[in-house]
């Protein structure tokens, strides 16, 4: 299967463990070069986070397992990039 290089996930997670810990747990995975977590909505008990992970041959199942282990749920996969080269989203006239 081809090389998974970037995933952007929409995650709903409880406040604890916080995103500092979660990002470090994800970054510790083999194949992950870097993690970015941004909170875009906060509730009383939960927060919505955009989780961006980049690397080489990303262990997607392990990423989901870690998120779920820490009480989170992946609501959607918003962006994916695979292959030998990282391709960015291209602006078209239709946009």
């Amino acid at each position, binding site marked *: 299967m081809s090389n998974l290089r970037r995933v952007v996930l929409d995650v709903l997670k*409880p406040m*604890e*463990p916080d995103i500092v810990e979660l990002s470090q747990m994800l970054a510790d995975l083999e194949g992950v070069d870097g993690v970015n977590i941004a909170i875009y909505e906060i509730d009383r*008990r939960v927060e919505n986070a955009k989780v961006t992970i980049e690397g080489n041959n990303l262990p997607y199942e392990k990423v989901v397992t870690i998120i*779920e*282990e820490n*009480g*989170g749920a992946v609501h959607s996969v918003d962006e994916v990039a695979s292959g030998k080269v990282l391709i960015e989203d291209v602006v078209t006239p239709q946009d």
Partner: protein
Amino acid sequence: MSMAQRWDVLREYSRISGTAEIARRYLVMNAFDGVLTIIGVLMGNYMAGVRDVAIVINTGLTTSVAMGVSGLWGAYLTESAERERDLAELEKNTLSNLKNTKIGRASRWAVVIVALVDGLAPLAAALLVMIPLFLSRLIGSVEVSYLLSLVLSLITLFGLGVFLGRISKRNVVIYGLRTLIAGVVSIALGFLLGGHGG
């Protein structure tokens, strides 16, 4: 998993569930209860004219064990109920089953720790205060053993106050005196009540 890793995991559970704060609270509260209860046992026995150390020790031990069981059982049931309610609410918010997640495990761990602290704190405090009674043969006099136990109970109460003072970063001596006064009052009331009963 190595011991160090296991320890790290347990510390993480404690952090997630806020166990340290609750355990501290229960430790002080229940040790306080334990000491004051034993003061009651000592004063009751002394004012009733009990000079056989075996009787005092028996009463003290059975009372301490009862406090331990009460603490353990009560805390287990209440903390369990509270944690389950809290987890259910969180599950409603996250729309997922958290039972097999770190959060679920941290919750169950908290129940165990709180129950143990609630059970062992009064028992340990009571046994500590009773040490002069256990050593009464060495001390040589039952009266002196009673006195030493009471003194030890007051010192323990002062120590608990100092601990509270350190937690709240306030004047430790003032806190120590506050808890000490409870012991002094108990002893004084014991004398008054014992005088009337006899």
